[in-house]
């Protein structure tokens, strides 16, 4: 083992590593810009990207004006999901308010609401939802149905349904009801930020490592010192190892800082082994660095390198399932996530932090990440010598 390490980190590599470290140490701005912004970004993303659907503004048209209708309104608006925003005189006015964005949902209670209830007839209440935002609408729809169902249950227990029942018993058999009892594992409080920050974590690792490494690799080329480096007795592999080491150390520090934020600011639970997390993070950083190196070998200036990473990073982040569920992507895009390091890392982070999964269920992700990293590192070694031609 020792021999192996001695062969990889021989005296040439050690000297090169020392040179790279010295270079980075003089560049204080780089060190600071590596640690500080990710922490701020992680916090901002975690707080700002919250899918929580609460306090939807609700407008009411109550044509019934009865205690029964007011009870329904109270039931709807006393939950955390809906907030009473105002009463309107007609459905048209309510529609106007929704189209101008003053309220997000509206309820129209018909004039014969209480009369139908007391006679045991089924009465229909109209619920209008601004479905522009599909996520909010889907969840809001669920809430509204839930509230009305539980309201029905109360009415039934008060005996309203005894009048309804005989009608239904005539044509149906004698059947029980299924009551579905959901239990939420791993995140019983349904905290949204846990999902967001664990996804953003991987995004930041890849994004920052690729940008920083492409900037530092291309610097040698801009300054024209790359020929000198390639003329030295060191092999390309050795140069790449030496170039990657200081960045790797710095980025690992960034990962540690981000982990602290995850734990302290967002209080993400830590069920599994930290080892998996760190191993996944290390692979992620390595693949990010080599991605940056490959980008740098294709660019002639820092500008071009930056612009190219603008091309590469958005698809990588939006097609990873880091910020939204993979099942929501078009079916033909879903298999592509296998090639995405952010996807694998997000899966590892979530599973090992929140679910406490072990290697038995995480090995495919580690394998995917490992292969990706290996291919990219090899590609960067190969491209590094080629870039002069």
């Amino acid at each position, binding site marked *: 083992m020792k021999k192996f390490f001695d062969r990889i980190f021989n005296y040439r590599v050690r000297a090169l590593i020392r040179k790279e470290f010295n270079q980075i140490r003089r560049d204080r701005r780089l060190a600071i810009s590596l640690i500080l912004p990710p922490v701020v970004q992680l916090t901002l993303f975690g707080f700002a990207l919250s899918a929580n659907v609460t306090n939807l503004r609700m407008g009411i048209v109550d044509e019934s004006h009865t205690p029964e209708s007011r009870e329904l309104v109270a039931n709807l608006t006393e939950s955390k999901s809906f907030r009473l925003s105002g009463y309107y005189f007609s459905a048209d006015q309510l529609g106007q308010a929704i189209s101008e964005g003053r309220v997000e949902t509206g309820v129209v209670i018909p004039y014969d609401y209480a009369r139908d*209830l007391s006679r045991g*007839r089924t009465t229909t209440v109209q619920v209008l939802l601004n479905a522009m935002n*599909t996520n909010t609408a*889907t969840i809001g729809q669920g809430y509204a149905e839930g509230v009305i169902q539980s309201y029905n*249950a109360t009415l039934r227990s008060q005996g309203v349904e005894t009048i309804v029942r005989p009608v239904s018993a005539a044509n149906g058999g004698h059947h029980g009801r299924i009551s579905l009892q959901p239990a939420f594992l791993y995140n019983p409080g349904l905290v949204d930020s846990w*999902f967001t920050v664990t996804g953003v974590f991987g995004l930041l690792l890849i994004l920052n490592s690729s940008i920083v490494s492409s900037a530092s690799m291309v610097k040698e080329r801009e300054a024209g010192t790359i020929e000198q480096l390639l003329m030295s007795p060191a092999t390309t592999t050795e140069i790449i190892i030496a170039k990657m080491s200081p960045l790797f150390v710095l980025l690992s520090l960034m990962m540690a800082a981000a982990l602290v934020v995850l734990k302290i600011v967002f209080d993400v639970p830590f069920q599994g082994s930290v080892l998996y997390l760190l191993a996944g993070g290390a692979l992620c950083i390595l693949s990010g660095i080599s991605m940056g190196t490959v980008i740098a070998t294709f660019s002639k200036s820092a500008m071009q390198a930056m612009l190219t990473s603008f091309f590469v990073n958005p698809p990588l982040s939006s097609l990873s399932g880091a910020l939204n569920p993979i099942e929501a992507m078009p079916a033909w895009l879903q298999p592509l996530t296998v090639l995405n390091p952010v996807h694998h890392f997000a899966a590892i982070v979530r599973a090992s932090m929140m679910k406490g999964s072990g290697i038995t269920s995480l090995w495919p992700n580690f394998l995917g990440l490992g292969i990706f990293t290996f291919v990219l590192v090899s590609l960067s070694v190969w491209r590094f010598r080629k870039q002069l031609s």
Partner: protein
Amino acid sequence: MRRILAQARKELIQIARDWRTLGLALALPLVLLLLMSTAISFTVNDLPLVVQDYDNSPSSRAFIDAFQASNTFRIVTWPVVSHAEDPLIANAARAVLIIPLHFGRDMDRGVETPVQLIVDASDANTAKIVSGYAARITAAYNQQLSGGSGQGPVLSAIRLWYNPGLSSKKFYGPGVFVLGLSMFPPLLAALAMAKEGEQKTILQVYVSNVSAHEFLLGKILAFVVVALAECVLMLILLFTYFGLTFVGDPTPFLVSTVLYAFCVAAFGTMVGATIPNQAAAMQAVALGGFLLVFLLSGLIFPIDNIPPSIRWLSNIVWGRYYIEVVRDALLQGGGWPAVWLNVWIIGGIGMIFYLIGWKNMRRMQLRA
């Protein structure tokens, strides 16, 4: 006026000569639009569900069929003997439905029969959707069993307005359209302006007879043209692939688009004039153009969800006002009464950017 036009022409020629920049300016917004609006979506279907049927009776299978028939769930086979948590730990399913022993017997007796649904809540939002769907399927199944009229006394008729198909593409498309406009034109403008400072060509401007206003307006005009070109390309995509159209009066949209193009171009020139260093200017635009608009404009989630401690920031994010106008024009159709204030604010923020840029440009001379 002539000098403004000449300045704008010079700028456009410079952009057109650099194919990489031109590609960035025109193709990348389209790529971004296609990619992000199809990828950012929270409407899930085909969710993997494991069913553990301890009863295995005709009635339990009938209940499972109700889940199988839905578009939302896909039933994954998993050995019944295993622990219910296993498929969740292995990431093989989003939820596990457990049907207890004697389910069929209890149903026949007419008793209320509990069925457990264990949901993987590590993705809280999807967990809410999963349990909502499952509850809806169960309710429909109950209703079907009791012959259709067994539902409660109050029936809710839910109407989904403006996007009845719940197509998330239609919601995120206009948002990403705004993101693209807030990102690329100011990026190019900032780079062009910072370059003048970096290469000291700004000094030539000072010795010429072009006034600061004319110079700035010329630059901004060039990038307004770029922004409007991007806008037209993206609109074509929105109208064809996304199936959107103007649902109401398009004039507020047209007016605010021109104002917004001015606003973002002025933002870019302001950044470039303030930070005469291309890399640093680029980072500043990435922060202002991308991060702020992406996070604090209501692009993905409503602004109301952001905790109040940082929500106030969204009041100064220019993209927020434009997103509201675009969504109104393409989805809601509220017209002028709904968005007149936004149009004023966009113009106002653009003026502020312009004035700061103008002030800083005078200082550029000292530093150059």
